[in-house]
């Protein structure tokens, strides 16, 4: 099939940026979306033109590197799918496709479709961990954890840190990402010990980074490639209020 692409090009953080038009020819329905872009890029390179820069690595939907807005939707039209796992059979001959980077104040564009998501790392550094050092851990079976709690923790821990939740939210809020980490650890006995500090520190950092507020649109859950549930936002809010009460004491 043949497609027309409109792609955001921006030389660097300082550049204003614009949409450019490209033709993608002879695209097979079995290609992934990124393989389609590879084809376009290889043609550009042959012509000596700057290929379209986009972030990607594992191409298996797990590293969270890929990050494209396709026709205004973070990761494109298929539910529960990263854009590296999106296949061209979801499109048809003659389609026009608009490709843009994540748009959020806290994720500045680095080049073309690549953004800087280091704000997520800094939120993690503020508290997204259990403060145990290497060595001295008790036997792994010393503390039984119910299957339900482990599964619940896992459901939250499945977050790949891609940032689609932020890109999809009209307030550019990072609540789903932060809630996923807070809940993952709060659901396990090992993480409970410092749950109160963690939630406060992470939320403070999130605010500092310039992410917006959550006003319950739930676009984040709809865009999330790992289908992280907004119920974790509710859990985080509970954790947060509990920690405030704790502080006042």
């Amino acid at each position, binding site marked *: 099939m043949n497609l027309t692409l409109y792609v955001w090009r921006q030389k660097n953080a300082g550049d204003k940026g614009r949409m450019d038009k490209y033709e993608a020819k002879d695209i097979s329905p079995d290609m992934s979306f990124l393989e389609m872009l590879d084809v376009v890029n290889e043609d550009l390179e042959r012509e000596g033109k700057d*290929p379209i820069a986009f972030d990607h690595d594992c191409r298996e939907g797990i590293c969270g590197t890929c990050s494209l807005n396709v026709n205004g939707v973070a990761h494109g039209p298929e539910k529960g799918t990263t854009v590296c796992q999106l296949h061209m059979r979801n499109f048809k001959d003659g389609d026009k496709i608009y490709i843009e980077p994540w748009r959020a104040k806290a994720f500045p564009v680095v080049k073309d479709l690549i953004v800087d998501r280091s704000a997520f790392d800094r939120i993690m550094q*503020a508290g997204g961990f259990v403060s145990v050092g*290497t060595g001295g*851990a008790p036997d792994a079976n010393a503390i039984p954890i119910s299957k339900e709690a482990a599964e619940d923790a896992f459901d939250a821990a499945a977050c790949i840190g891609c940032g689609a939740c932020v890109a999809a939210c009209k307030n550019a809020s990072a609540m789903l990402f932060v809630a996923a980490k807070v809940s993952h650890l709060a659901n396990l006995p090992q993480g409970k010990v410092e749950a109160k500090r963690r939630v406060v520190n992470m939320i403070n950092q999130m605010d500092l980074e310039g992410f917006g507020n959550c006003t319950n649109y739930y676009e984040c859950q709809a865009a999330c490639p790992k289908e992280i549930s907004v119920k974790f936002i509710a859990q985080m809010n509970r954790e947060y209020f509990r920690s405030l009460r704790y502080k006042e004491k």
Partner: protein
Amino acid sequence: MALDSQVPSGPMSEKWDKHKFDLKVVSPANKRKFHIIVVGTGLAGGSAAASFAELGYKVTAFCYQDSPRRAHSIAAQGGINAAKNYQNDNDSVYRLFYDTVKGGDFRSREANVYRLAQLSENIIDQCVAQGVPFARDYGGELANRSFGGALVSRTFYARGQTGQQLLLGCYQALARQIGLGAVEMHGRSEMLDLVVVDGHAKGIIVRDMVTGEIKSYAADAVVLATGGYGNVFYLSTNAMGCNVTAAYRAYKKGAFFANPCYTQIHPTCIPVHGDYQSKLTLMSESLRNDGRIWVPKKKGETRSPNDIPEDERDYYLERKYPSYGNLAPRDIASRSAKEVCDEGRGVGETGMGVYLDFSDAINRLGEDTIRARYGNLFHMYEKITDENPYQVPMRIFPAPHYTMGGLWVDYNLMSNLPGLFVIGEANFSDHGANRLGASALMQGLADGYFVIPYTIGHYLAGVTPGEVKADHGEFKKSEEDVKQRVHKLLSIDGKRTVDDFHRQLGRLMWEECGMARNEEGLKKALEEIPKIRDEFWENVKVVGENEELNQCLERAGRVVDFLEFAELMCEDALDRDESCGGHFREEHQTEEGEALRNDDNYTHVSAWEFTEVGKKPNLHKEPLEFEEVPLAQRSYK
């Protein structure tokens, strides 16, 4: 040069404890004076960097992704081994040790493997303490599954995302240290050279992948944890950015490269489907717990799999290896698949595929149970192939996956260059000629959490901190070399793309140095590779400039190294005139087509020393001794 493995004396089970006591220790007050560079923050590098910082060392770490959370360790699906014997199925440190030595086809260093098996238990404890949500039973205890090459259930897992969960645990530990200011982390940074001063590794040259700035970093020791080189085949299960660059540049600076020809071709991947394909996707080995592998008995079968009656199917692994069956080790399972496809019994459009069938398991356990075990893998399979594996058998084929070869290290995980340590997939040490499933995660974390934090102290205790600074002449020289190479790449302005060359090299390597190798093919490859390389330097087109984010330039730099490294791989494969594990020389097989070792001449590690590009490297041998597990032909029947 004599290669001293530094393996301690004494009984196998006491070596590590004894050695730890003999290692020098740096005092707490002095630790902060020492500066360690860690390149790569996957499971191996991430765990090492966090542990160093906890001890009080000053750490600077680098990775090429934007965040350490995205290292390719994240993609590991199936699980991690540990000799916990929680299932009471008679597992033990000794059994894990034995299985690993045997699985590696007697080409690994026994003492390293024994230590690995010992430390496996601590890893699980550590990860649980960090909040890794491993699978659990209803009683609240940890669950296990089985993996290839073992008769016990010792694999711990977190759904089909074990690597992700382990890496997040390790990333969190690292994030904590970054937050505390104990680790300085540089993402989107690529190491392009190692700097050696008076024979000691003293730092690295790094390109900032956003600004293009090429910069020197000096330290008292350098740790490489840069992963494997599977992408020499172009198509592999590795991430797009995985490379040999860091290890190869260290090799060019004098570090020995050990057993580069030992590559693992994983039996269960989604088959290749088109020229445009950029990577291959693994379907975890854990699927072999419940899936049965078969092909039609008849050549050129055209019926759809569900229409082929039971007695016209050949469950070839179960037939050939009745006791291990579908859980035969990877090298054996891969070769068997190739064999039946070569016979013309392969399935799918290209004939390069075999079935992995879940219908028996679904009938026995129900679709829900199978979904709970492998849901995400089935989902991924369906997305890629547009076929529903609950209804039709999966089609799978072997693909390059893991590299057992790597930089040579001694028992302390230090290379022959003092001060250069190598951990994780980037070193060669523990898996011999074939790695068993679920043991790479184990090795990466054992190296990073529990080995190198002790052994690096022993080295540092003997050097003066901060002796060499980044303004030393050697740094300037290396920086200049790197700049010139970049400049040259950008100025060729030829006609072919970087990927075009990479694909050409990959095809050649897959044909001649892949699942099966022979003298003629290897010699042919050794003639072809320099030609591809020469054409590359004349006819590649690398667009853009250095002073910007330039993905084309990044790829070109990696392909340059693959083009030289491929030659080293073929030299090694040619020199090792025997079959062992993943290295299958067609000239050496038993009547039944199994790998036939030549213990008299090849019970050694081949460690190669760089001479000149295009010239044969020098070979150094580390003899391997088997005190505990007597050399024997592997049998999985």
